[in-house]
């Protein structure tokens, strides 16, 4: 039943990415809204707004690292 194991591993990696990406999306949505609002008032804030907005992106990277580690469990083909 090697195929089933492989499939489960793939699904696991997928969940790691999907979950973290979803979380990052929610966080960025909230921050992005506020950032655009602030920028409408004061345009020079673009640099700071950009930084604050992209901070949650790191979440996906964590997901990616985990996904790669999970894929590492797969038997070498």
């Amino acid at each position, binding site marked *: 039943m090697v195929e089933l194991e492989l499939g489960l591993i793939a699904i696991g990696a997928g969940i790691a990415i999907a979950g973290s990406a979803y979380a990052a999306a929610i966080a960025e949505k909230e921050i992005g809204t506020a950032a655009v609002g602030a920028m409408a008032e004061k345009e020079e804030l673009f640099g700071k707004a950009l930084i604050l907005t*992209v901070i949650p992106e790191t979440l996906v990277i964590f997901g990616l690292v985990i996904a*790669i580690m999970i894929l590492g469990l797969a038997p070498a083909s």
Partner: protein
Amino acid sequence: MIHTKKMSRIRITGPKPNLWSLINELHAMKLMHLLDYNGKDFETGNSFPEAEPVSDKLVKLRSIISQFNLKLTPRIIKDLSVCSKKFSSIYENYFDLTSKISSLKEKKTFLFSQKESIEPFSSLNLIPANFFGYESISVFKGTIKKPLLEIEIEKTTKDFEFFFSEFQGKKVIALFVSDQFKEKIQGLLAEHGFSEFHFEENSDLKQINSDLTETEKQLTELENKLNELKENEGQFLSDYEFNLEKENEKLEAPLKFAVTENAFVIDGWVALKEAKEMQAKLESLTKNKIFIEFIETKEQAPTALENPSLVKPFEFFMNLYALPKYTELDPTFLVFITFPLFFGFMLGDVGYGIVTLAAFLFLRTKFKGEARLLLNSLIVASLATILFGFVFGEFFGFEFVEHPLLNRVHDLQLMLLISILVGLIHITLGFFIGFYNVLIQHGFKHAVFEKGSWLIIEAGGLLVISEMILGMTSFGNILGGIMLLAGIILLFKGEGVQGIIELPAILSNTLSYARLFAVGLASVQLALIINKFATQFFQQGGLMIIAAILILLLGHLINILLGLIGPFLHSLRLHYVEFFGKFYEGGGKRFLPFGAEKNNV
């Protein structure tokens, strides 16, 4: 290059009769950043008496310029005195035209509403005179929204005259009733959404129509004249505004200075290199009547970045974020090195590099100022993309080298490792710069507590990893543990609880560099899918070849656009968040010499 431009504080004192010539000279030199006087010992100066008519003219000029929507490049005018007369005649002309136009427009609206009220009744054979001259009859003329039936009026009275017609989709009525039912009928009409027409008894539709045509004719004529004025004098107006603004700057400069009855004091910053030269020039100009002194001060000087022309475009990223403080290191040079490398590492494709390079080179000819700086820096980034394209052996997603130095699609673990290592180096570099910044600002002790502690923690962590995970050393755990503990204690002394809370950030910051390969992987996989898809169409032959070419073009175009946004933002973010976070404070005030263009960065 690494430092911001060295400044020296300068104070000029002199007698008032020399002030105007001195201001003129300073304005032309464009060397001195003036400081507002806000002490209490002296008064601040007043602007020259000529300032008032000049600013009055500026207001008028700007209103015309914004009305005309002029966006011309201004030129220097040598002699302003002749312009004043020309401008007043232009302004008179402009004022005359615009006031005539606005009164004609009012007339047109009035005539038009008259026409709209009278015209509908012509189909009912009613003329304006029919509605006037009754003693005991009320007249209702206008439109209604809901249809009105005669039966509804009959409920109130049988004694009435009712006209109804549809005119251009509107329901037009004319109703004549005896005065005693006026109020009831009013109520009834209100229910049907009645709105009344207004016109005079002696109005004549023919006359109104001919008046309307005449007015419109006059209006076009005047508007043409106004356009002519814009075409002919637009350039002059832009030039005049530009030069007058400069004049105004000079006339209002004394508002920044400290004055006594007979003397003035000008305070400001000059670049150290140019200070001596400026002093000599000013002293000879005023025949040694002014006194210039250099002052030692701990105040923060304004920031002027100073980089060679190759690095200069990357100042864009500093302007976008925040200027460094005067005492801080200017990280532009470091951004110049790492930004293109990160960008290239992520996009990494010879084909994409060439396409973007061509696009940026083309766009560069279209833009000026800030946008040009950005494009120049992106050109460097495109070159790095081509370079990494050779490293990865990729050309539009095709592997054109059999065994490239690195294979992005297959060597995942290796790519991840490289990314993290790059991150580790970058962050360590950031801590070292931070150490230096704190060292020159607050001394060695603070530097060790605030930044050295992080370096010790990092080294300790690496030692622990070397034994626990890699198994390379046998002493790593003990030595590393001691260093970690020492580092944390130092950090606590330096930054308090806040520092301890931020401890895990060092791990997440390092891992964050994994995006270096992750973004690239996404881009290369997309390119591979596009190519695979197109190949299948190619194999079918015939008309499908056209489809295949379309897929290739469109697919790669989209991927390049995505590939530009992704690597650009991610590379920028790695600098702003992970790198700058380690050392950068920012918040410097821009060095703006008196007389220089304000928007010229």
